[in-house]
């Protein structure tokens, strides 16, 4: 790994976890690993093919740019040097869910803005040469498996008569808890 000093190794490790989770959720709809019977109102996948195809994570030094969907600009910027996360999305409902997940799971302080969510509080572990705290970064990348097709999942959920907004939001959080349990590392 000596030739990888140009990019933060903790970001790389966390990114590879995100890649593994998204790939497995896409390949087998998550079905063999997750109990989704109560989470999928229709026989729909967690991600649409259209949203999964453009996913990409690009790490340069202490910065990462994660493309999380197919809409232009649907991305997340992670700036480790500033301890900052910027999630870009125009869907208000998704932004609210992402704010909650980021605050609860990544332990950062977030604000919902017009075009996304802005968070502060990425840490570094004292005594380690590289920026970043690996468990927190893994938690962040685990959360970043969620926004892909979240708007579609929300739409499907809300179309069903009797499903309240609160219920559909809770479903997303339940889905995340299953992902967290299935992919601790």
């Amino acid at each position, binding site marked *: 790994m000596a*030739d*990888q000093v*140009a*990019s933060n190794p903790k*970001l*790389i490790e966390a*990114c*590879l976890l*995100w*890649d*593994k989770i*998204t*790939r497995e959720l896409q390949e087998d709809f998550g079905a063999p690993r997750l109990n989704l019977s109560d989470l999928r109102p229709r026989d729909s996948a967690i991600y649409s093919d259209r949203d999964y195809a453009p*996913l*990409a*994570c*690009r*790490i*340069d*030094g202490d910065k990462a*740019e994660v*493309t999380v969907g197919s809409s232009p600009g649907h991305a997340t910027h992670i700036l480790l040097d500033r301890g900052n996360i910027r999630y870009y999305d125009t869907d208000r409902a998704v932004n609210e869910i992402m704010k909650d997940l980021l605050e609860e799971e990544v332990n950062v302080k977030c604000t919902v803005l017009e075009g996304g969510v802005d968070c502060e509080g990425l840490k570094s572990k004292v005594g380690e040469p590289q920026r970043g705290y690996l468990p927190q970064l893994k938690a962040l990348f685990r959360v970043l498996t969620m926004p892909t097709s979240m708007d579609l999942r929300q739409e499907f959920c809300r179309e069903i008569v009797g499903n309240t907004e609160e219920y559909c939001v809770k479903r997303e959080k339940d889905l995340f808890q299953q992902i967290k349990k299935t992919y601790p590392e």
Partner: protein
Amino acid sequence: MAELPLEDVMKTTFKTFKERELLFRDLEEMGREKAYERDTIPKSDKVFLEKIMASSRIMRDELRELNLKKEARLPNYVSMVAEYAAPVADHCEGANIPRKDCVITPQNQGVLWSLIEDVNTLSLELIKRKCTFLWGEVEPYNLSSLLNDVTACYHRGLEFYSDNVGKWQKEGKCSWRIK
């Protein structure tokens, strides 16, 4: 059995970044030589342009994989210019017309003409200067001039490729800079 597209053959034969970069540089050199030989019948220029098209698509795809979408547009446009230039070369070879007399005008090659214009617009946006040298500068504009310009723009795309792709490592959907 259906023949594999040329870019797939290239990808299979030239697997590593280094091998591909060498191949692309050889093609660039070949382009310069062809453009220089103005009095020659454009023998195998069509095949050459198809190779430029295929290799530009490889550069485009690898740049896109690194999320360098803007940079990827240059080889993408070069591949389109080469695609539209190949039949012109084929026609002049078949009719035994030397490169210097194989004249290209906006009237006889409207799409090709506007693609060259587009590649220059893009180049101005990316590197603040046109990537062609002869288009709009020489009269008449012929296959020799076109080969010169295609090669010059291909060179710019290759610069993006060498500067970026060789410095990045990729695994799944993650890529990271290593140099």
